[in-house]
Structure formats: C-alpha cells, structure tokens
C-alpha cells in the first residue's frame, strides 16, 4: 500500500469518491480513498436512490439543483462509460393539515426563487399524476417534474473510475484504525494494512463519521440511525414520481427496473449501528403504504434491508474543517440526503480543501455552527 499521500479520504461511499475525484481534478496531488468494505457498502448503496430538489432550506435546494444538473450528463462530465440510470419522473410531496400546507407553500416560494420548477397541485391534479393515489384528507401536494432517480452503485462507480483515471488510489477492504496527530496537526492515518503519512484528511465515513472523528480526538454531533427499506418485484411502469408523505413518514418510488423501492422513518429509532431488518417494519410499511397507494397491496415484497443515516441535529450536513485539528475536514451528517447532493458536495469540498473560492458559500456548515447556535434546520426529511 501507498506510504504517503497529500489527502486521505476516509469512506468509499458516493461522497468520498466524489470528493476524491474533484480533489484530483483540481490538482490536489496524491489522493487516496480508504474503504473498510467495498465501494458504496454503507449508506450510499442502501439508500432510496431518489433525487429531489424540493427542499426547505436554501442550501439544500441549491445543492440539489446543481447536483441534478451534473447528474444529467455525469458520465460525459467524468469521461467514463457508466450508465447511472438517471431518470426524471418527478417527486410528489403530499400535504396534510394546515401546518404542512403552509410550510410547503413557503418552500415553493423559496424553490421558485432558486429556479426550481416545483408547483402546488390540488388533490385532483395529484390524481392526474398518480391515478390510484388515495387523496382523502389531503390538502394537495407539491410536484417537481425534474426530480427523479439515479442508481447509487453506478454513480459511486462512475466517480471511482473517474478518480482512478486521475491516479487516485482506491483501497477497499482497508479499515482506518487510528489517526496520528500532534500539536493540532495530522501526521498519519493508521489502517489494518499499514500507515499512510499525510497532513490532510477528509472524513466521509457516513454513519461512522463520529467514530472517525474520535480517532482524531474530535467530537462531532453526528450520530448513526437505522432506516429500513424494501423492494418489490418488478412490474410494468405504473407510477411516475416518487410519492412522499411526511405525515405518514414514508417514501415510495418505482425504479426504472420496474420494482418499487420504499421506506419509512421511525421517530423512536435509537442511535446505533444496528442495521438488521425487522418484521415490524414490513407490517408498518405495508399498512401505511396501502392506505395512500391501495393497489400496491398486490405487489410481492422481494427483499428488505436497512442502512444508517448519518444524522446531524439540524439535518444539514457538516462540511468543513474542525477548529481543534488543522486540515481535518468532515463531509458527513447528510441525514438521509447525501446521495442526491453528492456531485456538487464533492466539488465544494475539494475547492475548500485546496483553499480555492467555493462555487457556493459553505463556510457556515462547519462543525462549529452548533456551538455558535447557527443551525440550518431542514424541515423536509423522512
């Protein structure tokens, strides 16, 4: 294994691979990615694979908008031969009750100011989009036709290949076991395959970001939380958009492959690394899903699994340096929406690490914001 590097990226998910590619592209020198298992084995490869621009904070809207732009021709941008299965069949966010309706309408104003083509639809119009939608008690919905889907394995693969083409070294089955630092400066990363001398680290370890932070003596407010998900048998295309309900805490989308991918959030899920599946999820999922999309009761469930959200207290990621240790950068805490903003996030991280002006301002997303009390609470998360 390589003995020294200019930058070591910890985590071979989509954020790590996108950051590594952008670093190499911007001339960071020798860049290394360390992944304890295989690429996209963590949150990236377990996610719901949706792409949406309908967010409730300016930053998430901007990051998502730019990322969708980049994903629309990613293989070309990266000069790799990988089909990332990018499709734009929209997202339909269902609104129930006064509070949600007014929040959604506020979100629309924000989204329109940023050029995101979302709109309010009545229950009748929602049924034009998804004919079998149960609109009982629904106030309406917001719809953005340009939201969609992408294959997380393929996007990660595309970035990893592009990074390798720029001489980035990607080590899988390589676990980081320690970080050597003295007087506030990093000197090496310790792995099960030897040490790598470096003065710059990117912590892109997702659910394990806190664990990696602790190796450097840094306490990050990111915590792992299990989210369960399932996939059905493939059927003919029957549902265009991702249907999302914050009231039911549920999302469901038919993938280009024909299968339906769906999940629910659980408000009482404890912090932890447990990613086992449960029968309670199956039952809960089925009950909630069938109440809003009744005909899907006829689908066969093929497989269920779970993954870790890397949760941040305000559900907005930490992107930045840490005050206690020089050149220890974190790109984690994505709270369930890292995949869809990974293209631009990798670029911004690389710009910041290399001391270049960032395409969008991100300095306020450093870990220090929690001490300063400057949070960016994202309201629209399942």
């Amino acid at each position, binding site marked *: 294994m390589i003995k020294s590097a200019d930058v070591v990226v910890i985590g071979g998910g989509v954020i790590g691979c996108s950051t590594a590619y952008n670093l190499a592209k911007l001339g960071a020198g020798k860049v290394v990615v360390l992944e304890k298992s295989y690429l996209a084995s963590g949150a990236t490869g377990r996610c719901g694979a949706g792409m949406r621009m309908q967010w409730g904070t300016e930053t998430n809207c901007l990051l998502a908008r730019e990322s969708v732009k980049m994903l629309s021709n990613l293989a070309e941008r990266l000069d790799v031969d990988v089909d990332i299965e990018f499709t734009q069949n929209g997202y339909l966010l269902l609104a129930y009750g006064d509070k949600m309706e007014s929040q959604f309408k506020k979100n629309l104003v924000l989204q329109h100011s940023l050029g995101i083509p979302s709109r309010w639809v009545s229950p009748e119009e929602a049924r034009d989009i998804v004919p079998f939608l149960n609109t009982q008690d629904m106030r309406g919905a917001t719809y953005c036709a340009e939201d969609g889907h992408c294959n997380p394995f393929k996007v990660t*693969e595309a970035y990893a290949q592009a990074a390798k083409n720029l001489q980035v070294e990607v080590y899988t089955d390589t676990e980081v076991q320690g970080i050597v630092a003295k007087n506030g400066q990093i000197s090496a990363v310790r792995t099960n395959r030897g040490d790598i001398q470096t003065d710059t680290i990117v912590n892109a370890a997702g659910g394990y970001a806190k664990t990696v932070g602790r190796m450097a003596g840094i306490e990050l407010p990111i915590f792992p939380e299990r989210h369960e998900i399932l996939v059905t048998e493939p059927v003919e295309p029957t549902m265009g958009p991702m249907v999302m309900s914050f009231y039911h805490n549920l999302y469901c989308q038919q993938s280009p492959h024909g299968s339906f991918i769906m999940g629910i959030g659980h408000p009482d899920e404890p912090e932890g690394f447990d990613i086992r599946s449960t029968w309670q999820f199956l039952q809960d999922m089925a009950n909630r899903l069938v109440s809003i999309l009744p005909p899907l009761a006829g689908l*066969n469930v*093929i*497989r269920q699994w779970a993954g870790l959200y890397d949760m941040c207290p305000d559900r907005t990621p930490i992107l930045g340096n840490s005050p206690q240790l020089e050149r220890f950068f974190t790109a984690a805490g994505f709270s369930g929406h890292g995949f869809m903003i990974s293209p631009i996030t990798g670029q911004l991280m690389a710009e910041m690490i290399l001391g270049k002006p960032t395409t969008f301002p991100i300095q306020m997303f450093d870990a220090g914001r929690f001490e300063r009390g400057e949070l960016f609470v994202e309201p629209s998360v399942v």
Partner: protein
Amino acid sequence: MTNDTIICRCEDITLGEIRAQIAQGKHTLEEIKRACRAGMGPCQGRTCSLLIANEIAKATGKNVADIPLSQVRPPTAPIKMASLLGGKKHD
C-alpha cells in the same frame, strides 16, 4: 457453459457478464450483485450465488469454500403486501 449461458435466471444475467465484472476487479458476490443485479431477483440468488462463487474462485485461484456468500435478506420467499396488512390487534 459458454459466455451466453444464463447464470441468474431472475435477472437474465449471463456468464459473460459475470466474468466481465470479475475481470473489473469485483471479487465478491456483494459487489457483483450490486453491479449487475445478479441475485437480486425473486429467488434471491438461490441458483446463481454458488455458480458466481465458482467463477470468482476460478478467476482468483481461491478455494470456492473461501468465497463468502451474500448476506441473506428477508423475507425468505416473496410475500404480498396485502398479506402483511393488519394483524396488529391479534399479535
């Protein structure tokens, strides 16, 4: 078996496609599954897993017994959403 032989019957993946993945450096069932969907269909890899493990063993010179199989994911067999409804009151 030739490169045209179907290895994963659920997802129509041929031996040639599997060999191409292995040649790209994917030496575990988990990686191959994610790259080309082999083992993701209704049978959940009951047929193809061992065949793919064999191919990995051949290509890497390892003993097939040393190739880890994929994580087994529930449910054991496909189950209708409708069969999962209700039941809360009678548990």
